[in-house]
């Protein structure tokens, strides 16, 4: 029984491991440094946005506008290149993400609107602005050589993007588990009122949660645009669904109060590994979505099992927990 609950606790890791083992056996050429590095590079786009979303989901909020912010930040970073140069323009793109996040945060906290509705609205608004400033046409950057350099693989494994992703997710893990503000995010997500009453400024935490998520979506968008030397108003239009899936697969609860950075890392890698494996086998795009959907359901059901089990234990009176009464010989 103990092994079962241990397995359930590390279910993301186990599913990732299973995905990798099965893929390695069935898909020729899957196990190689190139696959790893390119798969990781690909996962990094989803991953960077997922980092921001993990914090928001733990705090009990959601940001649907991340895909639009992704596109808008990328466009700005490309459009300003002739005036500012590549790196300042890239910084401006990230700032756009930050501002978009601040708008989301200010509106959610200030107007007390549910973030699902509010970010649905800003998703449409940011996307439309992206179309508006580009006339719905892709915009092209000034220096393709820079893009080629950015897409380079270092140490056989990392691109700039994937290295940033891995570094950030480790930092997030540290922040969520070892610092007080990190732990306060969980408190706000479990019960905002109770958190407020125990002296946590939950409004401020939520606001900065949105700023953080916006900034990372912006960063991901800027990196994507720099690597492709293109800013496009249609970039990232279906991204947010995959990102939410990755975060939830990683064990972060959509209801808030529970989640982890390493879980998200596992979720992102699982989805990435699965996509690459299925693409290697030329599985049609719609079948891929069906498989991802089933894995999501499976993990959510497992999540429920773990929680009801724990809850059942916690619901018992304290003396029973510590000293379980054996009934009819069964434990």
């Amino acid at each position, binding site marked *: 029984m103990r092994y079962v609950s241990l397995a359930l606790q590390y279910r993301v890791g186990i599913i990732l491991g299973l995905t990798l083992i099965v893929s390695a056996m069935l898909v020729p*050429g899957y196990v*190689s440094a*190139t*696959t790893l590095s*390119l*798969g990781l*590079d*690909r996962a990094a*786009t989803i991953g960077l946005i997922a980092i921001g979303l993990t914090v928001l989901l733990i705090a009990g909020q959601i940001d649907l506008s991340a895909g639009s912010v992704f596109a808008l930040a990328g466009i700005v970073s490309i459009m300003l290149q002739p005036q500012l140069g590549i790196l300042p323009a890239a910084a401006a793109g990230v700032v756009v993400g930050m501002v978009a996040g601040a708008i989301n945060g200010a509106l959610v906290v200030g107007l007390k609107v549910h973030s699902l509705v509010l970010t649905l609205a800003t998703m449409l608004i940011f996307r439309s602005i992206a179309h508006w400033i580009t*006339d719905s*046409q*892709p915009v*092209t*950057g000034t220096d*393709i050589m820079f*893009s*080629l350099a*950015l*897409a380079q693989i270092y140490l056989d494994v990392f691109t700039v993007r994937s290295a940033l992703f891995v570094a950030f997710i480790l930092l997030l893990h540290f922040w969520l588990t070892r610092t007080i503000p990190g732990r306060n995010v969980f408190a706000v997500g479990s019960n905002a009122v109770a958190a407020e009453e125990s002296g946590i400024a939950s409004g401020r935490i939520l606001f900065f949660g949105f700023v953080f998520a916006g900034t990372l979506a912006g960063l991901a968008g800027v990196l*994507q645009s720099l*690597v*492709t*030397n*293109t800013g*496009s108003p*249609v*970039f*990232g*239009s*279906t*991204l947010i669904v995959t990102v939410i899936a990755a975060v939830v697969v990683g064990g972060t609860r959509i209801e808030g109060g529970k989640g982890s950075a390493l879980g998200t890392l596992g979720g992102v890698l699982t989805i990435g590994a699965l996509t*690459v494996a299925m*693409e*290697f086998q*030329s599985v*049609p*795009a*719609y079948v891929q979505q069906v498989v991802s959907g089933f894995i999501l359901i499976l993990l959510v059901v497992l999540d429920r099992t773990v929680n009801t089990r724990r809850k059942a234990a916690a619901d018992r009176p304290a003396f029973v927990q510590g000293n379980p009464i054996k009934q009819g010989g069964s434990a």
Partner: protein
Amino acid sequence: MIEKRNLLYVAAAAMLASTGLAHAKTVCYVNAADSHAYATPANEALQERAKELKIEILSLSQDFDVQKGTEQLNTCVARGVDGIILWPLDPQAYIPGLARAQQAEIPAILINSPMGEEAKPFVTSFTGPDVYEEGEMAADALNEALGGEGSVVIIAGQAGNGTTIGRVGGFEDRLKEISSGIEVLDTVNADFDQQKALVVSRDLITRFGDDLDGVYANDDTMARGFIDAWKEANPSKPTPPIVGINGQKDAFESIRTGEMHATIVQSPVEDGRLAIETMARILDGEEVKDRLPIPLTVVTKENVESVEPAF
């Protein structure tokens, strides 16, 4: 004895070489979409021809999402395929992916749509319709129908779109080249959309009325839009000569009934086939041209029964 052993070596070497040859080549095909009026028949034709050529196809669908396509190029490289056929949806975004492929010594070609100048060093060839030539052919067809004089309007596709630029440019240049007496009254964009074409056509018919001698639409769906607008305005009058492009089934019907004068067939089947055949030649070590157009056919009442519609 020694000879015998040598013979054995030779036989072994020959066997190794033949298994090497028999090993099927794999080509990564990053297509525009799995289900689309033009793309689907092109994809199917490519797959079918690949089977005949004993080439394995790794088919990845972008679903009209450029970002997905740029990532799928990575999958192709990681998979270590022998060649890449890309259906580009953007003039630039695929370049780093194509550069990676080049680094890995995987030849890449473009199907159907061109990319920008910067992409040229990274692709071996571009197979697909010559949209400029389509414009020229449309000009010839309309010039012939009007006997070399009259006033026409152009219903163009999307502003700034490569296909639109080619189809309008080819048309205008060709009229000048043959010093035709045809005058273009106006060029309006209707984004390859039947409904938009209907709306702009109503305006054109009101503005120019009886001065309108002919119409050139950048594709058949927009030609359809004009026909509908004309029928609203003049229920009893026959339509002026209309020339469209693409060779859709309903355009063939309109040519039969005399509502349209001509269309130009750009076959998705040819499009798909030419791409894989070109790739097969590259894999065999042949030199190929950097631009290979697919055949185009002008369809009028004379040959409408003998030509297959494109889709």
